[in-house]
Every structure is written in C-alpha cells, then in structure tokens.
C-alpha cells in the first residue's frame, strides 16, 4: 500500500466570507491531501474553519482562491448540478443533527440516496438492510427517526453515508450531540467500516476521545493547518 490515490486535494485554498462590509477570513491557505483509506480527525478551536473546510471538501461550496480536487475533478470547473452529481456519486455525509428525513423509516432514509442514484427497488432495499445490519441496526430498520435514540439516528446517518459506497465520507462533529457511550459506539461503527471496507473518513470534532480513534489528526487554527500527524497505533 505504497502509492494510494488521493481522494481529495486542497491547494492554497482560501475562503473569505463577506457580511456586508465585514470580511471574515475563514481559511487562509490550506494545503491538504486526503488519501484513500485515511481516517482523519479535523480538530481546532471554535471558529478555526473546520466546517468551512469540510464544506469545500464536500463540494458544497467553492473556495475564494486555490483549488480543490475531488476524486480527480477540479471543483472550480464544476457547476451546481455537476457538484450535486459528484456528491451523490462519490461522497457521503454525516451531519451534527437533523440528518434523517423524519417521515421516512431508517431503511427508507438509507434507500433514498440509492434511489437518487438510480438503483433499482429490490437492490436498494437489500443494500440498505445489509448496511444497517452491519452497524447492528437491523432491528431498527422500519422505525422512524423519532422512534430512535440520538445515537441510533447518527448510526443510521452513517449507514446512509456509506450505503452508496462513496470514495470519501465527511462528518462535521458527528458526536457533538451524543453522550460518551453513544459517541463511542458511533466511532466504533465508523472504524469498522474503515477497517473492513476501507471507507475513507474525514470528521471534525472537539472531543479528545473521538480524536483518539483517528489515524491522522489535522489541526486547524485561525484558518491555517498548524499540524498534520499520522499515528500508526490507535
């Protein structure tokens, strides 16, 4: 496993938010390469630019300057619809909250992404149940989000994110609303998917116990990367 392909590359990326006359420099020159199979924790104080960076790596936004390349495609060359297509085909997302569509069951939430990808009815149902089963959620497949605990909801969100076999899964503070036990369970679910299927994860967090799961830790301060460490042992 010497020359792993890059799934995401940021080069000299800056992001400036303009609020009227006020300009906020959210990112000031980010160089970062995410390799296939990485399990990256993005850490840093509040306001350091973690969410902003994840937005760019997730093709949800465009950089002010610099270039982001996702699975070989230059983000600045893509229009809105093409970015949506890229997200649907190659990326998975886990958000801090409100991940799931409340009127759909756990399985339907997972199926939804597959349906958008054009996967046939029987196949997508089977795939949804397979992923939910892998994360120990088989029993909960037909429950609606309001019948699930916060931890269960987040794990369903992870199931949805990986169901379409994305090249990269991005998670912005996925454990922020969870207690220690549920946070631990969620991290273990992500770790299993990483170890067994080689799913690439980049997640931001404030929680040191969550950081402990990462094989690579990128630290952001004030819109700049101040350290980027790989750890073989975790």
């Amino acid at each position: 496993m010497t020359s792993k392909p890059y799934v995401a590359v940021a080069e000299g990326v800056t992001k400036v938010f303009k609020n009227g006359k006020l300009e906020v420099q959210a990112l000031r020159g980010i160089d970062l390469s995410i390799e296939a199979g990485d399990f990256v924790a993005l850490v840093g104080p509040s306001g350091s630019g973690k969410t902003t960076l994840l937005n760019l790596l997730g093709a949800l936004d465009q950089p002010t300057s610099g270039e982001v390349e996702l699975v070989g495609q230059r983000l600045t060359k893509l229009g809105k619809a093409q970015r949506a297509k890229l997200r649907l085909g190659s990326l998975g997302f886990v958000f801090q909250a409100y991940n799931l569509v409340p009127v759909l069951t756990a399985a339907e939430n997972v199926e939804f992404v597959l349906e958008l990808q054009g996967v046939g009815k029987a196949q997508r149902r089977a795939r949804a149940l397979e992923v939910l089963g892998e994360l120990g959620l088989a029993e909960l497949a037909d429950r609606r989000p309001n019948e699930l605990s916060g931890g269960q909801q987040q794990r369903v969100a992870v199931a949805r994110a990986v169901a379409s076999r994305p090249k990269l899964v991005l998670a912005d503070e996925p454990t922020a609303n969870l207690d220690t036990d549920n946070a631990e369970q969620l991290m273990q679910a992500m770790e299993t998917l990483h170890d067994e299927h080689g799913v690439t994860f980049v997640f931001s967090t404030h929680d040191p116990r969550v950081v402990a799961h990462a094989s690579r830790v990128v630290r952001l301060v004030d819109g700049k990367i101040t350290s980027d460490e790989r750890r073989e042992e975790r």
Partner: protein
Amino acid sequence: MTGSVSARYALRSLVRNGRRTALSIIGVAVGVGLGLLAISMIRGADSMTINAAAGGGMGHLRVVPAGWTESRDDDLRLASGADALAAIRGVEGIAVASPRARVGGLLGLGTRAAHAELTGVDPSTEPQALRYVRDVSAGRYLRAGERGAIVIGRALADRLGAELDDELVVTALDAGGEMQSLLLVVVGVVETGSREIDAGIAQVPLADVEQLSGRDGFAEITIVVDDVTRIDALRQRVSGLELGGDEVVTWAEVAPELKQNIDSKAGFYNVAIMVVLLLVLLGVASAQLTGVLERRKEFAVLAAIGMRGVHLVRVVLTEGVAIGVAAAGLALLWAGPIAWHLAQDGIDLRTFWKSDEGMAFAGVLIEPVFYPVFGAWLVPTALGLSLLATVLASLYPAWFATKTDPALALRVDR
C-alpha cells in the same frame, strides 16, 4: 407511486402536516366544487337558451338560399324542393324539418289595418318547429292542404279587433310589383304569454304566400335536432345531401347576436371561475411555501447528499398533485350530488324573477325552468380545475425549494 421513496416522502410529509393539508384540500374542493356547479348551470342555461331559440322558430339548423346569410333577403327562394325536404326528414337525429316562406303585407279588417309579416308554413310540421303555435288558445291550428286560413297571435288580433271566423283582407306586392289580395279566415288565435311575441305571429298555408308573393317554393327549411351536441355533425350530414347550391347554417349564424350573448356570458363566468381558482391557488401556494420553509433543513440535507433540483421539484409537485387529486374527489363528493339533483329537478327562474308576463329575450320566449347538466364530464373537469390550481400553486414553492443552500446542512442553529 408508493414504490418510490421520494413519492412516499412527499405523501407522508402531507400526512405529517395533516391539518394544513386538510385545509388546503378543503379550500381547493370548495373552489372547484363551486366551479363545477357554475359550469353545470351555464351549460344547462346555454342549451336551454339554444333550445328555446330553436323551438321559438329559429331551429338548430336551417337550409337557406345561397347568399341569404349576407343579404338576409326574404324574397330569395331555395333551389331545394319537396325531394330535398323529404331527404332531410329522413336523416337520423333530425326531429323535424319545416319549410317556410315569408311575405310582408297589410292585414285589414273593417276600418282597422296592421302591417304583418305572413309566414307560409307546412301545417303538418310547423307546430313541432315553433312551439308557440302548439297550443292554440282559441280555435284551431292550420290544417294540411287547407287554403285561405290564418292563425294569428293575441296581440295582433287585438290590434285588428279580430275574432275567430273573421275574414281578413291581406294585400301584398308580388315579385312583379303587382298588388295581390287574398281573403283569409281567422281559424285560430295564439297566446304565448308574451305580447311582443304574439304581435309577430301570423301563419298561413305556404301556398297562400306563394300566391301573394308571386314566388314559388321555400325560403328556408328550419331543422330541429334531437341532441344539441350533434348540431355540427348533422350540419355535415345535411350539407352532403343534394341541395342544388343551397346552404346549411346553424342557429349561431342565423342569430349571431344570440351566439355572442352566450359567448360573452361564458367569458364572464370563465373569468369568475378563474378568480375563484386564483384565490384557491394563492391559499395553496402559501400553505405549500410554509411546508417548504419548514423543511429547509431537510431539503438542505437532501441537497447536500446529492438530491438535484429536479428531484426536489418533483417532490413538491407530487405534493401538489396529491392535494389536487384529493380535492377533486372531495369536490365531486359535495358538488356532484347537488349538480345531480339540480339536473333532475331543474332551477325555476320564477323563484328569482317574479313576473306574470312570460320571459322573452330578443324575441324568444325563455322557459322559466332550466336543467343544469350532469355527466361524466364532471370528473375530468374537477381533476383539471383542481390540478391546475394545485400544480400552479406548487411551482413557486418548488422553485424556492431548489434554492436551498446545501451548505445549510452543516450549519447548526444555536
């Protein structure tokens, strides 16, 4: 429909906001139901007007001499004769075909005189073509083959001071400019209830008009059909017969002002229905927009995971269609039975319009009771009106949904 997750998403979102959805459905159903009733009544009133005009002597169709439509010249005569008349009477769907010819003349009785337009008719068919002469209030109607007899309206009889069996002297100018005179015995007096119409009734055997005018043959053949909706088809059929250059026209061409009246009324009602639908549409649009705004976070998450604008539009439009179909059903449920009852019992205009005189409009005696139309057409009309309102109402909210910024999904409201 329920096979696709996005359809389930749309329908369950409606169920989740059951109260708002129900209010939207009721709102549309009320508007559409009113629209259905209005259309049912307009159609009933229109066919009543057309039939009243047709039975008032105009006919649904009329065979006229070439050039008559432009000149309106009553001195023109048809090329068609008895053979053509027999052929027309043989066409299936034609209730009656009655030949006529007119001549203007002076009626005199003793010292009194009145100008009148004499209509020469075929006594065996005329009462079916002109319902006013069906009930003769005094005396009798003309008999087939009879000569020198006249049936007049009450107003004309009063003007002349004429009574049954009086002999009227009629004087007219013939085709060659010569004065022609005839003695006509009053065999019947007609009372329609409208003096305006009574004043215009003076019917004599066709042969007497031929003699007075010095012109042989028919000036027109007036046709009444069984089914108003087949007027155009029957016109084609009759035109296909051997008519020697004569033209077949519809009531609308005979009386363009009546047609215009019906059309402008239809225009007015269409605008009224559209206004009601527009109000309904605005209500639904606001409810749908609220629904979209409430789900901004949901839509942002869906947009973030790659749901494209067209998919979001489809979800919102599915909701609009579902509301529309449900509302159409509800509209039929409440307005259908009412329309059915009205179609059975009719609407009696005398309850709104108190008058002893018969109701006459533009020389036509209007039936005081008309029957709104009920039929299978109500279903597609209900669906059409309903979906028009709800789908249009969903367009702006749908467009708004596509404007959702997917990056919103990562931002947490604190």
